[in-house]
């Protein structure tokens, strides 16, 4: 296999560390169904799952492992929180930088006339004060939920979630934070962040495999269930109620994925999220500086606080054409709208999309310079 320059880490990270792969293999070979049977291999699996809940709490500065819910991905977690908390005759606020994992469930709720749910979109491209002002201006008497991304998957901008949370607390609004892009590369402390629910993807900067994600509930409020089924608890009861996490975890969990996620989190925790954040910043600053000096390159949505993501176009070429040329040189980026059409509208790339280079701390300066060279040759 050719050596690739992989700058598509916002989609998923590759080259997972050996500890992640070994954990998944171990789970597939040795662990049974957690929380179902009473034999040693089932209890061992349950213990490993609980250890992952603890690891997630450690990473996010939280202290209730039982409030960590495992899902298939961040999209499922967001659907679970949004649809689970949505009430009839209510109003939802989302940012213009949300992914379709937020836009679509909110739109689906609003499209169901029987629910009488509406939503507003605030402008996420402003500075922090502008964002807070615009967010506040969208609040209505019946606003129940706000959904805000921790960091844009399009341009990497880190949103002032803690300040939005302060407003939400005063108004009694449930704040759901989409941390698909921030978890693992931006320091997160749930106690200071103030979000009621934090949704995460396991396979991006947490270095787990695809097929595992989750949500951390920091509120006593419980959402309605999205799906129901067996959860190993209180099984004679046809209602899937009871305490978290089982009341939101119907069906067999992805034990190999969760064990591998635990290993991934340990891997990044050993390096340190602050260290990862700093390394990323150094890399993305270098890439930004390099591309800024290439004639014909236009960069969009730069902000001071950001994940290692850069959005750009080259002259009047389509983003797909640029990504195609890069691929011929074994360089992986993502083009188009990145499942976040409102962000592209805001960043004035709504017609043809743009090229997204998203880095990881495992990338090197040499790769960035080679990438910049390829761009300069287009």
């Amino acid at each position: 296999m050719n050596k690739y320059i992989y700058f598509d880490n916002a989609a998923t990270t590759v080259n997972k560390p050996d500890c992640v792969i070994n954990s998944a293999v171990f789970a597939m070979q040795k662990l049974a169904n957690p929380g179902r049977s009473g034999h040693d291999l089932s209890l061992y699996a349950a213990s490993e799952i609980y250890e992952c809940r603890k690891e997630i709490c450690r990473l996010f500065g939280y202290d209730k492992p039982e409030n960590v819910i495992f899902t298939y991905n961040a999209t499922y977690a967001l659907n679970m929180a949004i649809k689970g908390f949505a009430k009839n005759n209510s109003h939802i606020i989302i940012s213009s930088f949300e992914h379709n994992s937020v836009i679509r469930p909110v739109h689906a709720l609003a499209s169901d006339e029987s629910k009488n749910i509406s939503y507003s979109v605030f402008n996420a491209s402003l500075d922090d004060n502008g964002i807070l002002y615009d967010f506040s201006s969208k609040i209505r008497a019946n606003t129940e939920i706000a959904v805000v991304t921790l960091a844009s998957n399009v341009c990497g901008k880190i949103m002032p979630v803690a300040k939005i949370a302060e407003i939400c607390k005063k108004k009694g609004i449930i704040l759901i934070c989409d941390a698909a892009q921030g978890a693992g590369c931006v320091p997160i402390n749930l106690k200071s962040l103030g979000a009621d629910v934090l949704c995460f993807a396991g396979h991006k900067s947490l270095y787990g495999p695809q097929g595992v994600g989750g949500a951390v509930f920091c509120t006593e409020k419980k959402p309605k269930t999205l799906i129901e089924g067996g959860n190993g608890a209180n099984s004679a009861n046809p209602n899937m109620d009871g305490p978290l996490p089982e009341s939101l975890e119907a069906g067999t969990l992805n034990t190999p994925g969760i064990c591998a996620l635990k290993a991934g989190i340990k891997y990044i925790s050993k390096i340190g999220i602050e260290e990862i954040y700093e390394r990323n910043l150094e890399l993305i600053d270098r890439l930004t500086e390099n591309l800024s000096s290439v004639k014909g390159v236009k960069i969009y949505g730069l902000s001071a606080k950001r994940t290692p993501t850069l959005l750009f176009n080259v002259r009047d070429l389509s983003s797909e054409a640029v990504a195609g040329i890069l691929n011929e040189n074994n360089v992986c980026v993502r083009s188009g709208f990145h499942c976040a059409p409102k962000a592209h509208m805001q960043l004035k790339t709504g017609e043809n999309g743009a090229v997204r280079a998203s880095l990881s701390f495992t990338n090197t300066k040499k790769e960035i310079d080679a990438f910049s060279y390829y761009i300069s040759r287009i």
Partner: protein
Amino acid sequence: MNCVFFIVSSVTYAMKAKNALERHGIPCRVEKIKNVASLGGCGFGIKVPKDYLSVAKNIFFSEGINIAEITDCGAKYG
């Protein structure tokens, strides 16, 4: 058997209880209950030597671990 069985709401709470007790050096073991009919379905609990009954209760209370029921080992739930 000279032990008590703390019945909790789920395997997650059984693991939480186990973690809490082990941090305090208290020997314990998570088990699935054997008499599911009397609990109204599957459930889990944690077995602790009887000598630690009161200290275990205090630990569970301080850690927010709700105990559904306490029985002697080998009695109602196995």
